[in-house]
């Protein structure tokens, strides 16, 4: 499970750290956020200790309606629960001794000038992105006619060469050789290049090339949703390759099944051409037209028409 340190959140959101001595190396493991209204009202059951707590106008105004003793008592029982950190929005000023109590039990407290809902929305987005399951694949990711096409296959089979050909045809490179894949939403995989490898590719015999410098900004893109997997493999005489396109093969990455086409490599086969067509066919299928079904239906009628009386 991925984890994020408080330090990174503080830096990304420019949060003010109330007690400079607090420990910022605490990990945050869930993207859920809680407004502790119920806890401050005295209900402490079902409190998720992994969540970041956010206090806004409503919570602080509520505490002000309580008598001083009761408010302090509620505050104490709240901060004695375990949670990664507390964020106070709209730069609301809480009583100094409350903050001191939090500091005493080493609870990191931050402040932001953002409004509560806005801050929660931004933080949720950020956390979901940062905490999403991810993996690095040995593959090439190209945007072909808007279809995120992941080319996989053994080392030396010609993935980069095929990608280069696709770029020359006007398609866009996302990542060569190492693709960082993140599952940001349910069943959605996004690929990007590791920072050092951005826009760079390696072609045997030429070495390392910078695609952006060679072909321009239009030939690259920073990230892309992955729609289709193309598996390149050496032509195996004994293996039966798909002739109709009826069988839907799937390739699983991070638990998400993606449609996959296995393309045999043999001299004389123009791979970039085939991949371009595979991407167009994918779009055609998505738009509701399936050539195979259409053809098979026609052929079935044809057979029926020829049936003896």
């Amino acid at each position, binding site marked *: 499970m991925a984890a994020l340190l408080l330090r990174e959140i503080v830096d990304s959101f420019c949060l003010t750290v109330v007690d400079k001595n607090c420990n910022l190396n605490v990990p945050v493991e869930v993207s859920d956020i809680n407004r502790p209204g119920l806890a401050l009202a005295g209900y402490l059951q079902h409190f998720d200790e992994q969540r970041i707590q956010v206090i806004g106008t409503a919570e602080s105004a509520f505490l002000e309606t309580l008598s001083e003793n009761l408010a302090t008592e509620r505050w104490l029982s709240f901060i004695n629960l375990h949670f990664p950190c507390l964020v106070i929005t709209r730069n609301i000023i809480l009583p100094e001794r409350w903050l001191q109590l939090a500091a005493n039990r080493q609870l990191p407290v931050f402040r932001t000038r953002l409004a509560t809902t806005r801050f929660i929305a931004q933080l949720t987005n950020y956390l979901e992105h940062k905490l999403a399951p991810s993996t*690095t694949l*040995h593959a090439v990711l190209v945007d072909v006619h808007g279809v995120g096409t992941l080319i996989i296959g053994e*080392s*030396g089979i010609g993935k980069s060469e095929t990608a280069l050909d696709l770029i020359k045809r006007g398609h866009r490179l996302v990542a*060569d*050789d*190492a693709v960082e894949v993140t599952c940001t939403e349910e069943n959605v995989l996004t690929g990007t290049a*590791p920072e*050092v*490898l951005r826009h*760079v*590719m*390696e072609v045997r015999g030429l070495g*390392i090339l910078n695609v952006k410098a060679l072909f321009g900004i239009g030939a690259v893109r920073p990230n892309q949703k992955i729609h289709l997997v193309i598996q390149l493999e050496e032509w195996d005489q004994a293996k039966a390759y798909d002739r109709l396109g009826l069988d839907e093969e799937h390739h699983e990455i991070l638990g998400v099944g993606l449609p996959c086409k296995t393309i045999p490599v043999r001299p004389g086969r123009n791979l970039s051409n085939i991949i371009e067509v595979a991407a167009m066919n994918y779009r055609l299928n998505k738009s509701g037209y399936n050539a195979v079904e259409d053809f098979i239906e026609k052929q079935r009628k044809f057979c029926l028409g020829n049936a003896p009386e």
Partner: protein
Amino acid sequence: MIEIQVTITNTSGLHARPAAQFVQKAATFKSKVKIAANNKVADGKSILAVMSMGLKQNTQITITTEGEDEKECSKALEDMIKSNFGEE
């Protein structure tokens, strides 16, 4: 499948030339080669993937080889790292 752990000892780590040497050596074998370190895994036959790991001196890496010549492959790569890639 063979898994070995090696510590990178050469001063500059797996930067350009050592990485290229490593990948070239790996590519002479039929076995699949994977390098794992710092929670990342890279294909040991891909120069960019290996370089993107940013492996410094004193990093411990795990090399996994799998295939008909896995023994020889594993040995050759281990020797290469231990010899500091011919650096001083």
